[in-house]
């Protein structure tokens, strides 16, 4: 039987007042006493700082706006998008970005969640370990790039090669070989971002009721079964949110790669975010390019659409499942 939700218990409903009575509230009064005054600042902020830039970017992506002639933009329709679709270099950049994102997100989540499970156990120096891992997330992404660039250097200054030399392994071209460069940029991103997932999931793990876990234990569930049958389902919305955040952040990375390889060797490690930066602002910092703000905005729109689709998939799969409908 379907019961309707009722705010007031039966028999205590408010009696509707007739219209045009002297004490009827004005529109302003109703507005002030309603939720809108509380929501309005947030809505205005969203409109000004989110919706307007988005629409503005969409418009700029349909112009030939350039830094050099910023006030002489012409409307060119979908020409920028057409250019991108026919640009093999851009397509391979998109493909690498997918690999970078999928491997990166999987790595971040598995290691981050694993660390969260580990550091959720009572152990000596737990706080120190937590802080040590979190420190990677606190450092600016650009600094992380430069730091790892030095550590992965193929010169004698490279720490990793120095360690390998100790055990008799010859220098590895961490950043200049096509395959190892890709592995390196993905690895550095995982190293930095694991901390975010760890903290996020650690917070979630601390909300899992101990009674449920103990009941599962009494029922004979081993550690793996408790994890997969109790903890993961319980944390599913949180895992979904974490994946959304991490995916968006990974997909949009550019400064870390700029510092590490500049997108090289050649364009082997160029991501869509870095490509957008180079196309739009490359001429400004002397790395070449045309300063094509219009095409840069088109790349930005492509990034927005892709991350939006990612977010929708995650929301559907992990947060708003059919059971919630």
């Amino acid at each position, binding site marked *: 039987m379907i019961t309707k939700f009722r705010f007031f218990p039966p028999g205590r409903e408010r009696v509707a007042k007739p219209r045009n009575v002297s004490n009827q509230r004005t529109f302003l009064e109703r507005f002030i006493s309603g939720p809108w005054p509380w929501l309005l600042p947030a809505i205005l902020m969203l409109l000004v700082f989110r919706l307007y830039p988005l629409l503005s970017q969409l418009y700029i992506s349909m112009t030939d706006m350039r830094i050099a002639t*910023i006030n*002489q933009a012409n409307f060119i329709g979908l020409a920028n998008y057409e*250019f991108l679709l026919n640009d093999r270099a851009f397509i391979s950049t998109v493909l690498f970005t997918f690999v970078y994102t999928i491997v990166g997100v999987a790595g971040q989540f598995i290691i981050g969640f694993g660390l969260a499970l580990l550091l959720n156990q009572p152990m000596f120096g737990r706080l120190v370990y937590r802080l040590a891992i979190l420190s990677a997330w606190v450092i600016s992404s650009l600094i992380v790039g430069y730091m790892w660039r*030095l550590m992965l250097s193929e010169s004698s200054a490279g720490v990793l090669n120095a360690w390998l030399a100790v055990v008799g392994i010859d220098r590895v071209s961490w950043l200049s070989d096509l395959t190892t460069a890709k592995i390196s940029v993905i690895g550095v991103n995982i190293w930095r971002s694991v901390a975010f997932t760890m903290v996020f999931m650690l917070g979630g793990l601390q909300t899992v009721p101990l009674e449920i876990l103990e009941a599962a234990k009494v029922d004979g569930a081993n550690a793996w079964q408790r994890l997969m049958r109790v903890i993961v389902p319980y944390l599913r919305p949180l895992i979904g949110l974490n994946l959304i955040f991490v995916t968006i952040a990974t997909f949009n990375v550019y400064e870390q790669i700029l510092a590490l390889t500049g997108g*090289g*060797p*050649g364009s082997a490690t160029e991501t869509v975010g870095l490509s957008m930066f180079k196309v739009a602002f490359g001429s*400004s910092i002397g790395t070449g390019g045309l300063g094509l703000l219009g095409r840069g905005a088109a790349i930005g729109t492509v990034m927005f659409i892709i991350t939006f689709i990612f977010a929708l998939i995650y929301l559907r799969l992990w947060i708003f499942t059919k059971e919630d409908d």
Partner: protein
Amino acid sequence: MSKYVRFVSFMLVAVMLSLSLSVAPTMAQDEESDEVITIRYLTPQWASSRDGRVERQIAFQSVIDSFHLTNPNIRLQEVVYDGSQVTAAQEILSGEIDAIWINNFWYPEWQRAGYFADITPYLPEGEEAEFFDWTIEELRSINGELGALWHNTDTPIFFYRSDVLDEAPQTWSELRAAAEAFRADNPRDYLFTMPMRNWFQLNAGMYAALGGELVDEDGVPVLFEDGNREIWLEMFEFFVGMGLDNLIPSEAAVNTHDSQMPLVYTGDVSAFYGNNNMFIRALQSNLPPDELELWEAAPLPRPDNAETGLYVAGGWVIALVANDDEARQEAAARWVHHATAFNANRDTNKAGGWVPTRPAVIEQDPFYAEDRFMQVTLAALNEGGYVRPFTPLIGVITEQMALAMASAFSGEASIEDALSAAETTIMAEYAALSSD
């Protein structure tokens, strides 16, 4: 009635008071404008009196002070910006800037768009001859007008350790022979490295020295036409061949001027291609004095079949922003000239570690005359300073040719494929630009 009169008289007094208050500053401003003209000069913080380095603060402030002394009717407001092209464009379009310090490769399109005024009428007779001739030629190459004066420049040179090389190689074959000999004796180290991400900036001069052209007179890219393509092939085969034969460290594929320096500091290489200012920016501050003494420099080795080398010159210019106010225009022109005059050119370049654009400064001032690196730079620029053509495509050509070299050097693509990919992109950009 009395209430009405009181109200009218109150309103009259209020209106007169507000009128007099609003007019007073304007009148004062008018009186002031007869005496003092205020001009606004936009400059990056690192080239201003507000830079964190004391020597720059003093140098730039002294130029402003001397300008005020010699031009008591002009007041200069130094406005700093982040040095980015976006900010510079927005500030010029705001109409509130009279002069601006910009990178030379932003100049062509803004000059073409009419953002700058001709400074020639405001210059003393013979003044243009005091600058490197190529600076004036290039700045005039857009429409015949001189919209700016070149403040400082730089050029790539070959740095080497004198205890490893007795003298610098002058040609590519000498460079290769020296690298091979070095590797034979030191299998773990390399003679030299070069930053492939800056490859075009380093080698565009040599391409020109071999007779290569980037664009024709109409601005059409011709760099992949038959003869020019042959030149690229020759250049690519030389450098990629050096990489394949393990004569340059593989890390060079992803290096820039700065990121290659750990190879130098650790002694993994004994020579490198770098901007002339790498001595001040990198070597001086990172090497102990006894090791620093070992470093020498020479002009870049040239291709064997080039009669002389050509060396890419970059740098920053101070442009005169066009405006309708003749008095302000003249005042700003005076400033542009003052900021690039002999004393200012000497002092600010000295403080910044840049190369002055007046050869006389480098020849006469003891600071430059006794600096071996500066004299090498002067020799290179006198032998052949080469400014990349002022075409809107230069950014994309620079980027794509460096990318092609890095791709071929790292083995991502063959030389032919790397050049074809660069050609496709450059021609597509040209087509997109032409259709605007």
